[in-house]
């Protein structure tokens, strides 16, 4: 049984899936009973996906063409 402070400690490794089975169970048992940590975990999970999405800038088309011109084989 862990408390919120411990659950906070387990947040990152939990999302990175590097916890031991026992630690996962410990975290999940707390999450089942604590809506605060559940909301914080979900927020963090969403944040990671959002960072990836927000920071993914498509490559400019001109750059793609410039790179193709750098080819030696053609």
């Amino acid at each position, binding site marked *: 049984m862990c408390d919120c402070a411990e659950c*906070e*400690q387990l*947040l*990152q490794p939990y999302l990175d899936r590097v916890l031991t089975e026992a630690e996962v169970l410990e975290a999940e048992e707390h999450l089942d009973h604590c*809506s605060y940590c*559940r*909301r*914080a975990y*979900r*927020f*963090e999970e*969403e*944040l*990671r996906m*959002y*960072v*990836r999405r*927000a*920071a*993914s*800038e*498509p*490559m*400019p088309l001109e*750059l*793609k063409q*410039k*790179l*193709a011109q*750098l*080819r*030696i*084989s053609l």
Partner: protein
Amino acid sequence: MSETTPETDARRIAREARDRVRFEEEALELADQVYRVARHMVKTREEAEDLVQETYARAFRSWQQFRPGTNLRAWLLRILTNLNIDRGRKLQRTPDSQSLEAGDYYLFERLEDAGGEITEEERVDERLSQDSIVEALSAVPHDFRDVIVLVDIGDFSYAEAAQILDIPVGTVMSRLHRGRRILKKQLAEEAVG
């Protein structure tokens, strides 16, 4: 001394040409992913474009150093990272421990304090703008940012990131952990002030 006949030489040259074409095509297919990482390793879009072009120029010249069957994406990023270091990017001061005292719930807590409870259904983009993410990321010192960009944006494994940056896997993990905390602190400052 080579004892090959002109015919086998011709065959070798043809094979090399085919391999080279295939290498170049495979490298170009990865350009979007390489750019996505490069974009956040340097400050501006122009710098990122230059860096990607230099990377591809070098990769195309030294394509024979690539071992087929290994990870081409990681190989390209390794070139890019080295070029970026060669460009003499400025050393940044490692953030002092005080700025890292914030825990993993820090951003969550600050956003709730400022704007009420974040429900399990709420989307993060209702509280944080895309621009604030990009801004906050660029404010993270580059040692930490490089790892975040490779793992969280570029989808590289810890082992690949370690290989690309030429640092131990343990350092990747610790920088990632601290880097994400720094990023969240920056985001809290951007969003809540």
